[in-house]
């Protein structure tokens, strides 16, 4: 039997990328100076210009087969795109389920189309060494809209996190005007009314609320949480750590504990920080007093959801979708007069701040494109479709008068014959399925106004509160060399295992906080110091060479 796992593929790719790196004369090194093929390109393309190729062009592109809206050739998107830009896209289709896997294979095999969308930050790293990807940072002058947005929204810092060891970045990410946060807690507002309290805005207020709930319903744990994959308390530790000024949960998994301490100007290990300890003490208090279900960190999402929808718990982790798709319909059956809302992330010692990136998944470009006679036209096309205001509105909402209308205040309104997100449930056609707009391949990022244009009123309120918070700067880049990356991952895994085990022990009261210093010592026994040295050295090196 052939069972090929993602890990197999990554290993194979890593090996091949290495091999290719030795063999090929690095195509990326030349930079954007050479006057590449300008066939079909516009001479005076700029911000606000509608891109139109001077002759009909076809570009090859990868595209997924989304199960909810599989690609159709008769989508209005394709015909309108051709009408506006003179460009046709020739697609290679990949099932959504295994998109990443096949994307990796065909890039490594040198069989990739010119445009490869849906690449998440970090995914491009294995292909960089082989020279398969275009170092887009050398060509941003061809992308006026992209450049404009980066400058206007002050995104350069976020972009820097994408830079590789050579100081270039290879991924052209989707960019948001503001940090977009979705995950928080959902709370039963009818229970809040019962105990006569307003929705909590800080973690301390949450504690008081949970205590009052417990008094009213002593048999239940008022808070039973979910999202324990791939790490226990993925969401809860994540949002809690951010309000305590440290790193936990999902972010810990993604960033391997390398937390940027802005005041000290260096990286420190998140879980060894005093703030991390304080956060665990807070959770330990909730567990000890019976306010937080001890199963919160081990149970499956379905079990946590079942408790919440059966009215046995009143607070649970939530995003906009789970609120509407899971909690409300579930509660409607069991507890018909229940009311539930998603509260803005409670605040903690770190103050009125939020943490996050403004980058989205984006596109990479095949390095061979540079030699194409239509290279400039292709870059202009990409810039228009993915980064111009007109292109973003087109990709998301479609054609004015056909799929949507704009009212006097500039708000978007779907046309009555078109459904999207349940806005016109009885409409015969669907914006994604039948017209091909709001397709995840083309429509992401953009202005806050555009992002909010599909949100419900309650989600807009949530976003308003969150947007009012100060965004902390993202951590600076510290690209590791191939050998360093290997060494780092050998240290990261045992450290992370130890952190996860002991995080639970401290929270559940199986280990006393008097042993905290011993815990930090144990981490040092697992090469914590060498690991942080490696990270900080890489940071310093990159700062000197490319800062």
């Amino acid at each position: 039997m052939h069972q090929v796992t993602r890990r197999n593929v990554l290993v194979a790719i890593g090996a091949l990328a290495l091999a290719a790196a030795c063999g090929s004369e690095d195509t990326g090194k030349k930079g954007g100076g050479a006057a590449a093929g300008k066939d079909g390109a516009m001479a005076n393309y700029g911000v606000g210009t509608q891109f139109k190729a001077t002759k009909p062009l076809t570009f090859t592109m990868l595209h997924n087969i989304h199960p909810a809206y599989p690609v159709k050739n008769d989508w209005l998107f394709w015909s309108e795109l051709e009408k506006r830009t003179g460009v046709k896209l020739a697609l290679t289709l990949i099932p959504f389920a295994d998109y990443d896997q096949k994307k990796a294979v065909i890039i490594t095999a040198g069989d990739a189309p010119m445009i490869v969308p849906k690449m998440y930050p970090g995914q491009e790293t294995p292909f960089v060494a082989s020279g398969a990807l275009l170092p887009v940072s050398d060509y941003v002058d061809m992308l006026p809209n992209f450049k404009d947005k980066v400058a206007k929204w002050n995104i350069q810092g976020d972009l820097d996190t994408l830079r590789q060891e050579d100081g270039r970045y290879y991924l052209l990410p989707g960019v948001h005007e503001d940090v977009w946060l979705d995950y928080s807690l959902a709370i039963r507002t009818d229970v809040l009314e019962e105990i006569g309290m307003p929705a909590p805005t800080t973690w301390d207020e949450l504690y008081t609320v949970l205590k009052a709930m417990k008094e009213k319903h002593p048999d239940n744990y008022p808070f039973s949480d979910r999202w324990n994959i791939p790490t226990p308390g993925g969401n809860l530790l994540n949002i809690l750590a951010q309000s305590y000024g440290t790193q936990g949960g999902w972010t810990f998994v993604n960033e391997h504990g390398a937390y940027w301490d802005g005041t000290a100007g260096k990286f420190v290990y998140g879980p060894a920080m005093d703030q991390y300890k304080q956060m665990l003490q807070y959770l330990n208090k909730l567990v000890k007093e019976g306010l937080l279900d001890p199963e919160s960190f081990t149970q499956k999402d379905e079990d946590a959801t079942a408790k919440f929808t059966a009215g046995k718990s009143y607070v649970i982790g939530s995003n906009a979708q789970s609120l509407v798709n899971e909690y409300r319909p579930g509660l409607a059956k069991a507890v018909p007069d229940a009311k539930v809302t998603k509260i803005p992330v409670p605040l903690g010692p770190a103050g009125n701040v939020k943490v996050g990136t403004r980058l989205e998944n984006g596109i990479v470009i095949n390095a061979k494109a540079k030699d194409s006679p239509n290279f400039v036209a292709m870059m202009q096309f990409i810039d228009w479709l993915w980064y111009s205001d007109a292109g973003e509105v087109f990709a998301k909402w479609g054609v004015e008068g056909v799929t949507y209308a704009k009212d006097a205040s500039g708000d978007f309104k779907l046309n009555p014959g078109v459904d999207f997100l349940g806005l016109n449930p009885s409409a015969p056609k669907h914006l994604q399925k039948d017209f091909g707009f709001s397709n995840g391949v083309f429509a992401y990022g953009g202005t806050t106004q555009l992002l909010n244009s599909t949100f419900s009123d309650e989600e807009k309120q949530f976003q308003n509160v969150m947007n009012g918070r100060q965004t902390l700067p993202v951590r600076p880049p510290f690209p590791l060399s191939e050998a360093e990356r290997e060494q780092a991952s050998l240290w990261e895994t045992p450290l992370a295992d130890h952190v996860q085990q002991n995080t639970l022990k401290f929270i559940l009261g199986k280990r006393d906080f008097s042993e905290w210093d011993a815990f930090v010592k144990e981490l040092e026994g697992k090469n914590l110091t060498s690991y942080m040295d490696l990270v900080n050295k890489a940071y310093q090196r990159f700062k000197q060479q490319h800062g």
Partner: protein
Amino acid sequence: MVIPKINAADRGTRGQRIFRRFNVVFLTGVVILTLYPFVNIIARSFSQNGYIISGQVNLLPRGFNLTTYRIVLTDPLFWTNYGNTVLYTVVSTLVAMILTTCYAYVLAKKHLRGRTALILIAVFTMFFNGGLIPNYVLISSLGLKNTIWAVALPNAISVFNLLVMKTFFESLPPDLEEAAAIDGMNTYRILWRIVLPLSKAVMATMVLFYAVSFWNSWFTAFLYLNKLELFPVTVYLRNIIAGVSGGEMAGANGRDIGELLQVAANIQSVTVLLTILPIVAIYPFVQRYFVSGVMLGAVKG
């Protein structure tokens, strides 16, 4: 109903009777254990999502519901892809049988020069292979992408099946073939007229092995085919499962939240049923060969 009369002697000793009773109870238990997952999956595929999520579905469907079946079965693409699966399975199995039989028959001849080398070549591929990317490059430079041959050729010879077949051919008495040769048959006629008719058991087993593996396979198809209308049904269903569990579908189908939850709850059981149905239907007909065939090589006289 006639109850066979057992005389006192047949009933055996007390110990034997206890053993027999124990056997009945124990083996019934084993049957229930093996059948339960199947029955449970059938029950889930017809149940309502609420009952499935809260784990209340056991042997019988609860809150009878056909939504998922309706959604999957009314999609024309599902039928196109199902047809592809049948076509790919038939063609691939045919190709695989021809190639494996010829290879195994040759290997079974002890007097063949270079036989060891030929066996080693086959066995080598059991332990080493070129890897995913070189294979991909090979298939695409041969121009096989987006054709049925990308699915049929790469897995045409399974070394395990090859060795089983070789062992079977070796166990046939060489005298038979000698006699046929003296009567003037050439090698091909001997294979066709003498050996194959005597090898129905192993042939049926191999057909079953190959057919099931081609039926279930999705990876080669996923890798080498780039068009919706070329995919086998396994790729189609895999994509649906990923869609509902990945959560991205939820945003897309706001209007059918109820429907969506239903699909998410039992798409896996529906999928399992729809894909194994044909294999389960064929199995009883092949099984009697299968029983004798799979014992091959287990005991050698």
